[in-house]
């Protein structure tokens, strides 16, 4: 864990070599350099700029965009406490304070001896086993005072991370309810074999079709037969937007281009969501299988898994699983012996940016750039990675697609509702006795989920995270389905003791922190919203502020560039509607109240002069 002697030349050369010196791998190089050196010094950026023929300013812009990259030293240990509302409810802030006191430092600042930084970060996806933190990117869940002491000791002793007790890093799957996805009986390769066989019945050689497609010639029956099953299954995307998967694959297959790509979105940044983490940990083969089926259908040779930086602990197991598949002939050249069926998957890491879950921002990030959502149209299916036709799907979507490829569309449609076929994984967390992953057929009621997970006293559930909806008791009869409560999977429960204003404020801060800053309405609007919530929290809120929230919501809904901005006001508006007293309790005035606290501004002067008499105070009430 010491900074290498040959700093920084060797580190840079290693990074360049590991990612074949290609500018689109810039972010991956920077992540590697950050891990090796604890920051990305400007002379390193200058060397990269030269080697990659990129402007230095552009590299600096990339470093400045991602929360896990830094231009200034951050010490040997970078500790980040997850700041999601569930981590906070589980006592995260007090543990952060404990660690800072113990190690004598201020959050967000490098310790005086240059040993470490302690800071907060957006939801790390450990809500069912929080509070959690990341140390140099690796997750440590289930924090308590004893664990914090233990971690502090290890840091003070400068113990290399590799020598920390493994138990600290143990992450549980907490699979609580299984249905057709988690209960599947597929062995690696089963879905692919079925897909290839399905092709052979209609035509001669399935793989020949796959290959001829790539060469720009009309597609054949092989891939099309499986595409038909996917379409017939009525599978819809599990990442939030719910687009029909078969249509997406078809559009990509039919878009002109000299190469096609399959990208799995494993950015899972929506606070409260962790089902993709569990799928990646326990169902990696099913995911690879789904991606490979997709490659077969659309005619792609290259796939990517975009893995959020917070899931660094999964990188090695996933790489090992890919290697096993290559050895088994399920990836690489001539997959399952079919001449011309070539496909492989590369894992790219994210670096702390929720917006990179938005598919076009994800593609920018995959290309090594700042994660700014693109202008659409054109869409990724025709202009995706490197402007080539690209399918972007969520982890769960690919897993479900593998099942459909194996068992067919009819089998899949047996579960769920007419409009929402199949099952959905829910990430259940918050105030309940059995948090974890629950798989249900679509159509399950909120009340049923609450009963199953042991949530006795729920007053609200945040469905699909802050960008989704907050429902109160009157909504517990509603159903999880695209036609009612559409969800990417988060199911965060709040009992009647919880202050729903603080919940909304936490989510509002999240959006302000994660806004990419590209468009005016979101860059400025999310910051204004955060300021208003802080003003209300400080007891200075008025109905005027509530009207301003509604105004900002209109501006964001109408003009924001991507879904982050469109949904940024949801938590505030939903809680205002269902839990208005939580706001009004904090209001001192029913009319205008300036944000500027006149008397508060004099506090420093009073301190310096040692005065605290009535004459040293200003009161608005005395001087209306």
């Amino acid at each position: 864990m010491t900074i290498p002697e040959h700093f920084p030349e060797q580190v840079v050369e290693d990074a360049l070599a590991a990612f074949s010196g290609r500018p689109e791998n810039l972010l991956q190089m920077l992540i590697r350099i950050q891990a090796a050196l604890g920051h990305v010094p400007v002379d390193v950026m200058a060397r990269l700029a030269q080697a990659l023929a990129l402007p230095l300013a552009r590299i600096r812009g990339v470093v400045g965009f991602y929360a896990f990259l830094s231009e200034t030293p951050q010490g040997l240990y970078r500790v980040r406490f997850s700041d999601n509302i569930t981590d906070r409810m589980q006592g995260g802030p007090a543990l952060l304070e404990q660690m800072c006191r113990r190690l004598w430092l201020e959050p967000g600042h490098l310790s005086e001896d240059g040993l470490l930084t302690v800071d907060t970060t957006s939801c790390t996806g450990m809500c069912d086993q929080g509070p959690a933190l990341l140390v140099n990117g690796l997750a440590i869940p289930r924090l308590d005072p004893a664990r914090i002491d233990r971690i502090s000791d290890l840091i003070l002793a400068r113990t290399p991370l590799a020598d920390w007790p493994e138990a600290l890093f143990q992450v549980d799957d907490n699979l609580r309810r299984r249905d057709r996805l988690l209960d599947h009986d597929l062995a690696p390769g089963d879905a692919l074999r079925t897909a290839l066989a399905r092709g052979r019945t209609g035509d001669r050689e399935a793989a020949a079709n796959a290959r001829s497609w790539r060469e720009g010639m009309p597609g054949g029956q092989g891939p099309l037969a499986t595409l038909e099953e996917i379409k017939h299954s009525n599978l819809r995307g599990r990442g939030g937007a719910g687009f029909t998967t078969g249509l997406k694959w078809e559009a990509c297959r039919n878009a002109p281009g000299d190469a096609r790509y399959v990208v799995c979105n494993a950015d899972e940044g929506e606070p409260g969501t962790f089902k993709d983490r569990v799928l990646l940990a326990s169902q990696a083969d099913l995911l690879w299988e789904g991606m490979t089926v997709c490659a077969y259908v659309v005619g792609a040779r290259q796939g990517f898994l975009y893995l959020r930086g917070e899931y660094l602990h999964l990188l090695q197991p996933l790489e090992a699983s890919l290697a096993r598949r290559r050895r088994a002939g399920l990836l690489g050249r001539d997959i399952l012996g079919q001449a011309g069926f070539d496909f492989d998957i590369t894992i790219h890491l994210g670096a702390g940016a929720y917006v990179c879950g938005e598919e076009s921002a994800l593609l920018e990030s995959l290309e090594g750039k700042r994660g700014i959502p693109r202008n659409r149209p054109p869409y990724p299916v025709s202009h995706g990675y490197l402007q080539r036709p690209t399918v972007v799907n969520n982890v769960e979507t690919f897993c479900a697609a593998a099942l459909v490829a194996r068992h067919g569309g009819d089998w899949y449609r047996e579960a769920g509702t007419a409009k929402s076929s199949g099952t959905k994984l829910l990430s259940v967390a918050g105030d309940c006795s059995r948090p974890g992953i629950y798989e249900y057929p679509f159509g399950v009621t909120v009340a049923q989920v609450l009963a199953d997970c042991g949530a006795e006293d729920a007053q609200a559930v945040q469905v699909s995270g802050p960008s989704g909806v907050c429902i109160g008791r009157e909504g517990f009869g509603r159903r999880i389905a695209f036609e009612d409560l559409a969800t990417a999977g988060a199911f965060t429960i709040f009992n009647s003791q919880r202050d729903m204003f603080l919940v909304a404020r936490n989510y509002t801060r999240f959006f302000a922190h994660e806004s990419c800053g590209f468009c005016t309405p979101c860059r400025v609007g999310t910051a204004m919203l955060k300021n208003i919530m802080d003003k209300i929290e400080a007891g200075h809120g008025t109905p005027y502020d509530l009207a301003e929230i509604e105004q900002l919501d209109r501006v964001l809904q109408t003009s924001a560039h991507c879904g982050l901005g469109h949904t940024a006001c949801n938590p505030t508006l939903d809680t205002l509607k269902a839990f208005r007293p939580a706001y009004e309790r904090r209001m001192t005035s029913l009319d205008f109240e300036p944000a500027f606290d006149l008397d508060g501004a004099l506090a420093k002067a009073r301190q310096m002069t040692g005065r605290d008499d009535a004459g040293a105070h200003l009161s608005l009430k005395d001087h209306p």
Partner: protein
Amino acid sequence: MTATPAMSPQPPAATTATFQLDGREVPFNEGQTIIQAALAAGRYIPHLCYHPEFKPHGSCKLCTVKVNGRPAASCTLPAQAGLVVESDTEELNGLRRTLVQMLFAEGNHFCPSCEKSGNCTLQALGYDLGVMTAGFRHFFPDRPVDASHPDILLDFNRCILCELCVRASCEVDGKCVFALSGRGQTKHLVVNAASGRLADTDADLADKAMEVCPVGVIIKKRVGFAQPIGQRRYDARPISAQALEDAPRPGAGSPGCAACEEGG
């Protein structure tokens, strides 16, 4: 907001495809966006980050219109036959007013002491749209000034992050002097030097990038206030009456921008 009919340098090519803008037909060529076609046809849509010589950016959202009832940025949305576009409505002008107010609140804009006053697009849009008050609490951000260059001053207090200088420097000057860094409220402009100072870049007064800033960030030294406030561009006529004269200008540079944000 009535527009002065403007002469477009090239008459629209032989095309019959049109879309409707506020009830009147607008012809367009394949590949034009809504705003490009509208401006070429002498129809004004308010805009700020769009500049006729560069690829549309789509970030300020002032050009937001409703297309078949749904909002979209007209500078980036490709024109299509038969679209029904609304622009000059109270709802959309209200949105634009709010966006201008938000930009004023985000930066430090003290117009009376600004060298750009009267020539500033943000200010001109504010007047034209009828922005009477700040509307929001100001952020009063702490932003630096870079006076290191002998001929050019950078006053980041007024930056609206429109990326025009980034584009001009990469596409026209071939220098990439500017890029954007940070995100959200920490988003800011950076210059292409390890020191972070403009003096250590190859920026030059004659660069295209030094002309395009719509607000008062990139300021030429020693010529300040040569033209008195009151006799400047937008002091004479409102921006809606002038924008069309600039409109259909062919781009000067290559479309490639190594430092630009948007990949579309």
